[in-house]
């Protein structure tokens, strides 16, 4: 920059006259350039103004919906509310007892004959503040009862893949356990969950979950609970009667196929867990169990949809396998003193079982709105010892019999908020019973759009 200027100054000093004429020419040239540039700058300024006006109008347009939004009402902070209505019709044989032979009764509810109203679920959920969210699932029973199926808080701000849940919640063990009945693929529960937990295992306690920072889904969880539900009991003690550990791993095989697998462990310390059953001669008995109950549960889910687009066709496969070992002390006595049983006068003895089972199911949406599904449930009574002998020699409830069930379903979903289902079940859950069962079921979801887990 400096050098041409110096050169020019030197040249000007050396050739004054010559330089004057050149300078005039230069001045004229600069003046001309200045005027053309001014015109161009003015044109540019005009264009800029135009563009700004345009942007303003775009901004005004963009801002418009905000401005025209309804004024904030006092109920804007109300939680999301959704309501599930369920019910149906069942064609069943007239049986007094629908227990599962070979297993101590878990308190599973048996289906009702004829028309019946299922459980109506009322779900409320919202963010509590920047750190927590809250959730309530209240079950309104057909018998006018109200049950709290879930009522919990969960942290949202811990980060690092961590979350803590507390209150009453469905345990994270297994696959189906966290699902509410309206999300099941069949009208009735499978034998595995029937025998293990009645419906599903619910904890009153705390859950901590950690998701690993990997592209592969890798989740670990631990739970401590009061153990108020089968196979545990609430012992009124300070400690945790129910401890659960679980891990899940999952991912995509490709764009069309995704999967999740898991392994869970549940330990419970039931005290005086009461039951009603029958003895070897089918005479009613009552009793209780105190000891330790340990359950292993392995689950696997695979979902297929062409290119991951599940709207036209999709397929879902789910299977779970369990092993449960219980050991401790079992008492039994007559249910009715006037009707003496094998437990007459009270019978107490060591009790030890090693039982297992599985279910496997597939549901195929073969065209929009329509799904067909099949499920096979199988339990193995396995080893059951009571007072030094096979438990089946005293108690008919624990007879050496392997329960099984076949279920076939067809459901119609005119929208994602309505499901109408037909189901046929061949039920062999009880020894010496082969029952053909027919179900018609409706499920309606009202209110806030619920999001379903995988």
């Amino acid at each position, binding site marked *: 920059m400096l050098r041409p200027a110096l050169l020019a100054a030197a040249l000007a000093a050396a050739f004054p006259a010559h330089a004057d004429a050149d300078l005039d020419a230069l001045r004229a040239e600069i003046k001309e350039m200045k005027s053309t540039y001014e015109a161009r700058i003015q044109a540019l300024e005009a264009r800029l103004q135009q563009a700004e006006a345009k942007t303003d109008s*775009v901004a005004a*347009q963009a801002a418009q919906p905000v401005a025209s939004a309804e004024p904030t009402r006092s109920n804007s902070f109300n939680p999301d509310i959704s309501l599930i209505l369920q019910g149906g019709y069942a064609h069943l044989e007239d049986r007094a007892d629908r227990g599962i032979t070979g297993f101590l009764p878990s308190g599973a509810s048996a289906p009702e004959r004829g028309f019946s109203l299922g459980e109506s679920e009322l779900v409320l959920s919202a963010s509590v503040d920047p750190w927590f969210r809250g959730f309530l699932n209240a079950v309104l029973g057909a018998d006018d009862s109200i049950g709290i199926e879930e009522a919990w808080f969960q942290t949202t701000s811990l980060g690092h893949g961590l979350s803590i849940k507390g209150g009453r919640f469905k345990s994270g063990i297994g696959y189906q356990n966290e699902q509410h009945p309206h999300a099941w693929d069949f009208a009735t529960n499978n034998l595995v969950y029937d025998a293990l937990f009645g419906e599903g295992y619910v904890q009153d306690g705390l859950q901590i979950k950690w*998701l690993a920072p990997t*592209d592969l889904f890798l989740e670990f969880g631990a739970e401590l609970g009061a153990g108020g539900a089968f196979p545990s009991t609430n012992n009124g003690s300070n400690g945790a009667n129910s401890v659960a550990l679980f891990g*899940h791993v999952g991912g995509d095989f490709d764009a069309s196929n995704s999967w*999740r697998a898991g392994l869970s462990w549940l330990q419970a310390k039931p005290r005086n867990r009461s039951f009603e059953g029958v003895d070897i001669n089918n005479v009613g008995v009552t009793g209780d169990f105190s000891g330790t109950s340990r359950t292993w549960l392995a689950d696997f889910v695979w979902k297929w949809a062409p290119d*991951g687009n599940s709207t036209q066709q999709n397929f879902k496969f789910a299977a779970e396998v369990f092993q449960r070992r219980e050991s401790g002390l079992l008492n039994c006595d007559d249910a009715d003193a006037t009707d003496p049983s094998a437990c007459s006068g009270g019978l107490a003895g060591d009790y030890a079982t090693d039982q297992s089972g599985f279910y496997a199911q597939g549901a195929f949406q073969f065209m*929009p709105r329509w799904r067909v599904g099949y499920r096979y449930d199988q339990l193995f009574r396995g080893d059951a010892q009571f007072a030094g002998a096979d438990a089946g020699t005293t108690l008919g409830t624990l007879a050496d019999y392997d329960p099984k069930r076949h279920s076939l379903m067809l459901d119609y979903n005119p929208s*994602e908020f309505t499901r109408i289902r037909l189901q046929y079940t061949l039920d062999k859950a009880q020894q010496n019973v082969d029952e053909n069962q027919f179900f018609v079921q409706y499920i309606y979801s009202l209110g806030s759009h619920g*999001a379903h887990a995988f």
Partner: protein
Amino acid sequence: MKPTSPLTVRAALLALAAALPAAAHADLKIFACEPEWGALAKEIGGTHVNVYTATTAMQDPHRIEARPSLIARARSADLLACTGAELEIGWLPVILAQSGNAAIQAGQPGQFFAAPHVAMLEKPAALDRSAGDVHADGNPHIQTDPRNIARVGEALAARMAALDPAEAAGYRTRWADFSARWNAAIARWEKEAAPLRGVPVVVQHKAFPYLQNWLGLKEVAVLEPKPGVEPSLASLAAVKAKLAATPAKLVLRAAYQPARPSEWIAAQAGLKAVALPFTVGGDAQSGDLFGLFDSTVSKLLAGLH
């Protein structure tokens, strides 16, 4: 073993020193719900972002499974870039709840929704599910108008700059560059698409109000009897009767939608069925955002002939 020469050591050290700043500054990890926002984030972020796109153009963004793979990717995201307006309501809440990631939760700067940055169309006057799968905030398919891409991009670039101050200048520069090229492209597309103004069209799903608004296409019928409800034979017959009175030229559908309803009505009512890419990756030509609109405009024009 060959002894390492001092020169090699020095070269290695130099290379390490050069690599260090890049290593110290981690890429911004972006979880994009839809391909268009993933593509936009890549335009703004260049090589300084790591973009994971949760869905593809072959999937219905309304109905996505909350797959374990999505939860795992959301876990480590610094920024979530989604459409919003309830488009992802059936799956995103599950992913957010299970991600254990505080940065992308509601109210955090790491949660970015595109819909609030554009003027929404088809905002329902009354909210009732008897009207089908309606969205309270309006039609969420905002990406079919390139001017919306520009509006969202400006906000997204600002958000990325705020989240990653070290690379803020780079985001602004790349955004300015993209924006200039984008505006030029919009002018070109508008010129090319001039013959489409006022052309009557049928749509399979109400997926294109923003495209129609941009190019002046006239929607005369919808194949879905209600939003989100698959066309039935009865609803298709009703559309056919309607088209006898008010004829249309094209029937439009998105790449992920089944061809049959469009092709049936096209054959019955003498229309041309056009499958639009709808988002990035929707056809061979739609490799990026420019390709998306190049393809959209050329497919619409081809439909006229």
